[in-house]
């Protein structure tokens, strides 16, 4: 048996209601279990209970018990689980204790007091399993996001744990790095027989690997079932599932391959129909314009003579590998950094020269961590200040927030909001002064499908009244729903900038599920397909 939850309820200190209620389930040896649920429902809490970091490090009230191979979290501290449960945190960078990859791999084994010969052997095995051969002697600070994640997994794997616990391991990764990480996990489950418990919002990436799905509900109640059973009537699900639900396919397909088999009739019927065009009018003076902009960090070129324009009313999605230069491009447009060469213009102005209240009036920026924008200690205060900063009528920001996230309490501290709620508050502040340029950096990180749909509506409304919107994201499904145009950059150079249909459907890496199912036709979203089917 892998791990057993025995009627577990857990309440954080000072919390009014329990986060988890009467969780009773077991994950078998060698199973791949996927934890799903809306933002902020307690998926992380469930994961951290497995080795007892909750409640041993957080405090709180625990009822019931969690047992791993006969060891209960009630009488074993987290370090006692080091050889049984490998925990990979959401942001691996914060967990590293060494400067070189191989030393990091040795850390857990050194703590466990294993012999030098054993350590040597296990490191060799792990390096092979995780494909780290070329990285072993390398300094950790030189690794890319996907490599860091694989090192983090390897560094707990060396202890030969029975269970591997991962909290959204691909949320910061581009599609190909995410595939690398998930393929490595798949190999562990199949070849080593390890149990994997993983939480993930982007189900389209993980669902195909899962044996069982643990669904955490709003009330802290938890179900565990087969992926097909859970997905058959899930309210929010990845595109192929939604497509199957709306077209009445039975059984629900879990992989693109299964969906293609169910979609033979659909493809035939859509053959003589065209996906709707997403048109934008070209501007003489596009609000977002980069002209041969070059940004260098020391000897590394982050942007290489990059030119790009985004028109009024256009939503452009910026894609590319981790480290391709997306964030640098947004920072240059926000005026947070000045390119060494070339020109950057926002509504015809040099963004770096804007100061004071001019900045929020012209440029709306939602940074990767939206919490950075929040400076107050109350939601209401935050909104009042935004009104004041932008010279707006009192109450403007608050009423906008009520539209985006009606459930948010005036007296709440911004830090206590869920990730999705914080994003809504930041958006309300940014949108209240109606800037003509909107820049968003990875806004869907940690958002569930409902949250993403709401964000899409908000951005489309802003573009509808003339804003130029530039969104950097790894989320291909979000891009497919949202984009008029897609710009792909690599090594700081613009690879392509074209209509969403052209760019997304022709790339094997960035193609959304719908277009994979209907290839070679150029469909992007479930809505487009369902409407064409009924037409």
């Amino acid at each position, binding site marked *: 048996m892998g791990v057993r939850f025995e009627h577990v309820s857990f309440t954080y200190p000072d919390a009014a209601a329990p986060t988890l209620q009467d969780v009773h389930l077991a994950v078998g040896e060698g199973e791949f279990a996927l934890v799903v649920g809306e933002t902020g429902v307690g998926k992380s809490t469930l994961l951290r209970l497995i*080795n007892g*970091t909750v409640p041993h*490090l957080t405090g709180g009230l625990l009822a019931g018990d969690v047992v791993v191979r006969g060891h209960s979290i009630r009488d074993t*501290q*987290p*370090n*006692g*689980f*080091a050889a049984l*449960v490998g*925990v990979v*945190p959401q942001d691996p960078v*914060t*967990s*590293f*204790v*060494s*400067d*070189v990859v*191989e030393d990091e*791999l*040795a*850390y*857990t*084994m*050194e*703590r*466990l*007091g*294993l012999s*030098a010969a054993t*350590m*040597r052997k296990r*490191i060799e095995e792990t390096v092979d399993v995780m494909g780290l051969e070329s990285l072993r*002697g390398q300094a950790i600070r*030189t690794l*890319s996001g996907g490599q860091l994640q694989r090192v983090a997994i390897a560094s*707990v794997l060396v202890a030969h744990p029975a269970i591997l616990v991962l909290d959204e391991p691909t949320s910061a990764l581009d599609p190909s790095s995410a595939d690398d990480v998930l393929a490595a996990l798949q190999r562990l489950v199949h070849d080593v027989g390890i149990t994997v418990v993983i939480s993930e919002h982007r189900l389209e990436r993980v669902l195909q690997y899962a044996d069982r799905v643990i669904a955490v509900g709003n009330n802290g109640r938890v179900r565990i079932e087969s992926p097909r059973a859970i997905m058959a009537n899930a309210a929010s699900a990845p595109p192929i599932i939604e497509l199957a639900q709306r077209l009445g396919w039975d059984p629900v397909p879990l992989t693109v391959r299964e969906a293609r088999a169910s979609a033979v009739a659909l493809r035939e019927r859509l053959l003589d129909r065209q996906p709707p065009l997403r048109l934008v009018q070209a501007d003489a003076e596009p609000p977002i314009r980069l002209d041969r902009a070059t940004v260098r960090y020391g000897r*590394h070129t982050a942007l290489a003579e990059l030119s790009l324009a985004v028109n009024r009313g256009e939503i452009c999605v910026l894609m590319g590998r981790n480290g391709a230069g997306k964030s640098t491009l947004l*920072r240059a447009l*926000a*005026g*947070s950094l000045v390119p060494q060469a070339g020109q950057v213009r926002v509504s015809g102005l040099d963004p770096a020269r804007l*100061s*004071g*209240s*001019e*900045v*929020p*009036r012209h*440029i709306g*920026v939602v*940074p990767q961590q939206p919490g*950075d*924008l929040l*400076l107050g200690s109350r939601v209401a205060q935050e909104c009042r200040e935004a009104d004041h*900063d*932008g010279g707006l009528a009192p109450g403007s920001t608050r009423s906008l927030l009520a539209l985006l996230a009606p459930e948010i309490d005036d007296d709440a501290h911004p*830090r206590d909001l869920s990730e999705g709620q914080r994003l809504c508050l930041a958006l309300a*502040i940014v949108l209240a002064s109606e800037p003509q340029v909107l820049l968003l950096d990875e806004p869907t990180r940690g958002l569930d499908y409902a949250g993403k749909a709401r964000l899409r509506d908000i951005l489309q409304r802003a573009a509808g009244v003339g804003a130029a919107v530039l969104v950097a994201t790894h989320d291909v499904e979000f891009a497919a729903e949202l984009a008029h145009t897609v710009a792909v950059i690599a090594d700081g150079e613009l690879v392509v900038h074209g209509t969403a249909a052209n760019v997304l459907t022709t790339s094997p890496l960035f193609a959304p599920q719908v277009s994979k199912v209907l290839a070679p036709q150029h469909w992007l979203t479930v809505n487009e397909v369902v409407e064409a089917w009924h037409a």
Partner: protein
Amino acid sequence: MTKLLLHHDRLVRWLHPVAWWTWAVGAASAASITGNPLVMLGISTAALLVIMKRGASAPWAASVVPLVQLAGIVVFARILMQALIGAPMGTHILLHLPQAPLPGWLTGVRLGGPLTLESLLLGSLEGLRFAAVLLCIAAASTVAAPSRLFRSLPSRADDVGTLLIVAGTLVPHLVQDFRRVSAARRLRGRHTRGVRAAAASLTPVVDAALERSMQLAASMFSRGYGLDVRATHHRPDPWRAAETAVAASGPVSAALVLAGIALGNASTLSIAPLQWPTLPLSSALAILAACLPAFLTPETPTTDRPEPV
């Protein structure tokens, strides 16, 4: 001799950190004991040679220019101090500086006044001594990071090594956070300059640092930190002929300097009468001993790819 020592040691490998630090302490002692500026220069050269030839992976190993500049600044600062506030000495007056009147009870202290060749030389001598010690420590840190030194020691000292590495990543993180938060303040239309702006940015930065430490603590705890077993070492650095040679060379260098002084044939910089020092055999051998590790050791592996991605 090189061939003889390295006959069984052709690997590109890290030398045991204790060997390097023993060498550094020995060489630095030689530079501190001696009164001969030529020996100090020789020891400084030895340290620079070690950095250039064995510090392959350190970012500053590629160019020793900044290090030499730093040493130069140290020497210059010492000269300046001697010239301005040192006790008056010597008869070779180079120029008269304006002298500040000081209360009578401050005997032996002056500010400004005549600048003599003797005080200038004495200042450079002390500056050079300090620069040589500094370069020895820099060389040891380059070829054997302090964290590696602590990791090579038994049990509890090991945690000090981890602490040093974690602390080493803390500062860059703090700088990054501070920049991010300041940029966000600007986006809200707030001021980003001045004391108040900096203070306002500090709270979220400290919050982030705390959050990170909590995550690190949880992660270390989950990975077996604090278990009641005797921690072991992966690939402990071996101690071979090269280590013995390196560890011996530093103390030997210091011993040679001491022997020279004891035998009365150590040449020192004399200022009364003014006399340029020579380089007697014992001093020359002391310099040679300090230089040997740059050549007698296996090459150091590199931890960086040529280009970061």
